[in-house]
């Protein structure tokens, strides 16, 4: 029998083999497991390297020693108080954005439908900027975050954006580009609102908010990390738990219901998770562009699966954000915000996708 060039043969595409342990039974997917382990290792290495880089350079051994309670007092201070919050924020932002993108791309069956492309990130930013400008008078991350201001406002903004996009754009069906077009429109309106808020703001607030709006880890601290950590520890396991349902939703609504998926509940779960994950990332680091959009597609390709695997997308997101932050701090003179680096990487991919799908867009 001749094989077509599209038919990649491999063990992952053959869930005939599996593993059964007590009540747990899983198809054996060695390639997925292998690339996930590699991604995890890469993320950990980047985390350690990222903590080591700075005005006082530390070797990876110093970093690990300080993390585990050893090393000098100064090393522990630098690692635990100054650099760990930033590195962990970057790691978690990448994790939750990668997962949010994987959720929405699978559920809409459209690689363009990610929080950053369809306006949910803009909603979160508008909410956060409103909290900064209208709420505080001065932009003080720590006090606002401690009061829950920015995370709550970002979540509200993301929810409003998601509700608008879903309400106005869904009717054309999941594969329709209507959702994308409405999302881009909603995103533009929300970005305009953000700009208006910035124009009205005091010059110093506006300046700081602008840096934050590019997506930056420079303001990360333990207080700004806690809300993100709390959201991630609940929403990430829940996202992993939607895996089976996501696999069914890939077959289209009617078939998915046919094999027993409660599509309504699934839709609400996925939207809620994507909104909460996106808002948490935006509240902690600003809108780090294109991570949710690019990362799941990378994960899908390296794993050779039919949809972006959730865990792998999260780990690739972590690696990408940490690497982008590292590049922003070391490759260029001065400090380039992480969001700028990810945008430079991600924007060309968006343009390529749009050009490739031009036909569907105009029809």
């Amino acid at each position, binding site marked *: *029998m001749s*094989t*077509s060039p*599209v*038919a*990649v*043969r491999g063990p992952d*595409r*053959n*869930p*005939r*083999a*599996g593993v*059964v342990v007590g*009540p*747990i*039974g*899983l*198809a054996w997917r060695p390639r997925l497991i292998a690339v996930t382990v590699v991604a995890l290792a890469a993320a950990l290495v980047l985390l350690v390297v990222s903590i080591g880089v700075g005005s006082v350079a530390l070797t990876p051994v110093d970093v690990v020693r300080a993390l585990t309670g050893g090393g000098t007092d100064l090393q522990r201070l630098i690692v635990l108080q100054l650099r760990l919050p930033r590195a962990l924020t970057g790691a978690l932002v990448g994790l939750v954005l990668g997962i949010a993108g994987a959720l929405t791309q699978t559920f809409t*069956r459209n690689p363009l439908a990610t929080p950053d492309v369809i306006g949910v990130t803009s909603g979160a930013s508008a909410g956060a900027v409103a909290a900064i400008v209208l709420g505080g008078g001065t932009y003080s991350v720590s006090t606002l975050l401690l009061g829950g201001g920015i995370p709550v406002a970002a979540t509200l903004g993301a929810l409003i954006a998601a509700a608008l996009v879903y309400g106005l754009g869904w009717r054309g069906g999941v594969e329709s580009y209507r959702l994308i077009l409405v999302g881009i429109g909603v995103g533009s309106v929300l970005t305009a609102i953000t700009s208006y808020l910035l124009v009205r703001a005091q010059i110093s607030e506006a300046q700081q908010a602008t840096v934050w709006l590019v997506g930056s880890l420079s303001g990360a601290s333990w207080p700004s990390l806690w809300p993100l950590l709390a959201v991630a520890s609940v929403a990430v396991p829940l996202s992993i*738990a939607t895996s*089976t349902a996501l*696999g*069914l939703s*890939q*077959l*289209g*609504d*009617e*078939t998915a*219901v*046919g*094999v*027993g*998926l*409660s599509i309504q509940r699934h839709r609400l779960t996925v939207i809620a998770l994507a909104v909460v994950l996106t808002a948490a990332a935006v509240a902690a680091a600003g809108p780090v562009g294109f991570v949710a959009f690019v990362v799941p597609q990378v994960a*899908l390709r390296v794993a*050779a*699966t*039919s*949809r972006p695997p959730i865990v792998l997308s999260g780990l690739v997101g972590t690696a990408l954000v940490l690497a982008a932050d590292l590049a922003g701090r070391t490759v260029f003179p001065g400090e380039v915000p992480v969001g700028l680096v990810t945008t430079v990487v991600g924007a060309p991919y968006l343009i390529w996708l749009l050009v490739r799908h031009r036909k569907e867009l105009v029809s």
Partner: protein
Amino acid sequence: MTTTTLPALEARGLRLAYDGRTVFAGLDLRIEPGSVTTLVGANGSGKSTLLKALGRILKPSAGEVLLEGEPIARLATKEVARRLALLPQSPSAPPGMSVRDLVLRGRNPHQTWARPWSPDDAAVVDRALEATGLTDVADRDVAALSGGQRQRVWIALVVAQEAATLLLDEPTTFLDLTHQLDVLRLVRRINRESGSTVVMVLHDLSLAARYSDRLVVLHGGGVVADGPPAEVITPATLELAFGLRARVIPDPVTGTPLVVPEDD
């Protein structure tokens, strides 16, 4: 005919509408267990609409559907999926999904959250692939198959679901005559061997007559003829439901009605 058995599916006073546009105003239908029923009618006569309502995809604006006597709307969707499988009119698979991977998803109603795979499931999938003649292409990308092979993949998914009632919307569209016959023979074999109830939609009236116990002709928002193929397929019904002038002769092979359109 008196039956004491519960109908496999029953529609009672079904009113089906899209955004206020009514397709059926009040439809009653009983599907006997173990029978093969085919819905026929012109394009847009509401065959898919009715099938969707029977499969709880479309919510009726009035009336109800009973699955083995129980209101389908009140059963958990996974419970329904164990008893009823459905094949939509034009399903589509995402790129990169293998045949076996897709068919495995048909096992979902029998799986628990922690166990999306078991050796049993793998065995059922193997049998479904064999029954549909797909064993050789099991590891290929669904998107890389021919239209006819792809159609059989979706049928394999429904077979793997092991439900007592199957709803199939145009399972033979896009197939050449040989493969149409393959699919219909497979449907009949499943019906005979496991006593499954089948409700399907077909456009070829002669094949529908050959492979069905009962035909239901839909037209103008209702049922215009209903019964054994030999009674239903008449020149008068064809004229009414399809606006078709045709003769009906006995099929020389099976004796079932064969539709021969008049010359223009």
